[in-house]
């Protein structure tokens, strides 16, 4: 009986981790083309939830609202890239990459406070796709989280196929692996970076629309999610899309079990483990695909 309970806990963790892994995959994708960690990634997660909230207030049915929220985030991501000065858009040196990280950080701070002023810092209720739940060995699984997990798995598969088979996907992979060669072969750097960034943050926004109905969204959700995304890409390897999937599930299981047995220490333990991994093997458990600077 106890084993079944642990198993159910782990299962619920995997479900949670799948969606988070999707967000982390977006982070990895962006790292691949830009060579820096998108410090505004959590902000787009928050944006996804916030937009879904707004659109639902406007009366749109939830599935349509999710689609629009994700599309809007994609467009916003592209807009952000083109708003950056050229030397930050395509970083040539480590310094430029760092500056981009700092710029995105400031953007994230600005958005957090803007949201704070607009909403008064209240946690907003975001509509779910489905209501209700069932239990398995005393562990409750909401239909929303199951739908979220299934959708995430589907989007993962689509992403993998996109990167592998489509023209743009191949261009993104080529650019990530060897920027100069790809450009020599006619790949336009700015466009690829913008597209990859747009897709990456759209993935974060999608995670937001799927998880915020369960957990709510407020102006500081962005930072919490950024830390989680960091944890996952560290586990899975920054730059590895597949690694983010695995990392997400490991994180989900770990978090679920830890918060059951040691709720107070959960975060501390997870973070210390991540720190040790970063120090000892920064390329993560899965190894890194791309070496940038």
């Amino acid at each position, binding site marked *: 009986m106890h084993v079944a309970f642990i198993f159910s806990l782990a299962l619920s963790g995997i479900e949670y981790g799948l969606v988070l892994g999707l967000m982390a995959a977006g982070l990895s994708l962006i790292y691949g083309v830009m060579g820096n960690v998108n410090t505004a990634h959590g902000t787009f997660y928050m944006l996804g939830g916030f937009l879904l909230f707004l659109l639902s207030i406007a009366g749109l049915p939830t599935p349509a609202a999710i689609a629009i929220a994700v599309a809007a985030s994609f467009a916003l991501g592209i807009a952000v890239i083109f708003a950056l000065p050229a030397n930050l858009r395509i970083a040539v040196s480590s310094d430029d990459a760092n500056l981009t990280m700092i710029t995105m950080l400031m953007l994230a701070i600005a958005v957090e406070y803007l949201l704070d002023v607009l909403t008064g810092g209240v946690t907003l209720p975001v509509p779910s796709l489905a209501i209700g739940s069932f239990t398995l060995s005393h562990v409750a699984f909401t239909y929303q989280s199951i739908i979220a997990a299934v959708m995430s798995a589907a989007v993962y598969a689509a992403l993998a196929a996109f990167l592998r088979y489509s023209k743009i996907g191949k261009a993104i992979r080529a650019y990530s692996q060897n920027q100069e060669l790809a450009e020599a072969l006619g790949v336009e750097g700015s466009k690829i970076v913008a597209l990859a960034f747009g897709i990456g943050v759209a993935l974060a926004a999608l995670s937001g629309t799927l998880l915020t109905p369960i957990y709510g969204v407020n102006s500081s959700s962005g930072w919490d999610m950024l830390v989680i995304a960091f944890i996952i890409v560290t586990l899975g390897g920054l730059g590895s899309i597949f690694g983010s999937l695995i990392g997400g599930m490991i994180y989900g299981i770990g978090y679920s079990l830890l918060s059951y047995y040691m*709720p107070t220490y959960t975060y501390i333990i997870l973070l210390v483990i991540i720190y040790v991994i970063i120090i000892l093997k920064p390329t993560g458990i899965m190894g890194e695909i791309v070496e940038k600077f």
Partner: protein
Amino acid sequence: MAIIAAAAGGAYAYYNSATSASRAPILIGLEAPLSGSYAPSGEQVLQGAELAVAQVNSQGGVLGHPLKIIAQDEGPTTSTAIQAAQILVEQDHVQFLIGPYWSGDVAAVMPYLYQHKVLEILTVSAVDSFMKPPYNAYTFRVGEDDHQNALLAVAFLNMTHARTFVYLGEDYLWTHEVYNFTLQMLPQYGVSATLLWAAYYPGSATDYSSAIAKIAATHPDAVLVYMSGENSIDFIKQYVSNPTTRNIPVLLVDTPLILPSYAQSVQAAIPGGINYVFIGAPTDYVPGVTDKFFALTQKEYGYSASIFAPDAYDAVMILAQAIQRAGTLNTTAVAQAMMVTNYTGPGGHVVFTPQHTPVVGYGYKTGTIYQVVIQNGAIYYERVWPPYVANFTAVNPATGQPYQ
């Protein structure tokens, strides 16, 4: 919403700088969260205080002077709370202060306020361990107290005839204190319930599936939940979604669920789920007096249930009476005058212990237990305890029958 926020900001600035009538007003500082997730609660503190000020001023003020509230936003962190206190003391030169709201902030500013001999009245923070010499010389508590919060637990366990229970709390000082007080008070009141386990969760946590799974697995007779923010709403939604746990009577203490808007959001998310959930409210119900006060809040502010407004109202009234009694604004004299307070207001009957906290017990401050009942789609908060103000018999969620 941005316009409202800007207007609110402008309004506070104007409000704080506008001069009053002829005689120099007695300034009462007020520190509460006026922005962020807890702004609605903080505003209720301000509104309760304002109603009292209007009442006192309409009767000639105190010692011939009108009262005036100077509000500062406590902000989201202790740093902003300290800054707010510094602004009130260094810039506005207040000698009396209502708040801060959060226990952490209270602890942070207490030494500073003590050094400046500012008389502080707490209406929300319930932690007892602060109320010790020397810092409590100028600090009084009018609102809920952790002994009272523990009394709610004892009363609930008694009412539901629970033989076993579990205790969940957000991980702050007050919940640990209530836990200790509860265990101490159970034998004192002759209630023989056994604690199965207790757990604390970060205040910012939103996922309680592990906790609820554990409750379902260990199946206590009653569940005590001490979470004072949106976390309690997240918790109860997940709790009533679980078919096993929703039948176990649960007491949510200090939760904003007491406000209809939150109850409605839970009802919308899980139809029927909130039926027969118990709420431990930190304010008392005084027949006649509390009703009259809520009629006033309904008229002025549009709500007729509030956790925070009654105690803030009482704080100002008690302070006004003490100043009048002392005959001076000197805070040492006023503090002495506060000690002989014997006052009944919308928040309850207040008499101070030597530690400057309110006496807890029947006839004094007890808090109130409500049961949420849905009838014909409407949500009702029925009083089930204390017995002398109860208007409803508590119903067991598992059986749908009253506890005998």
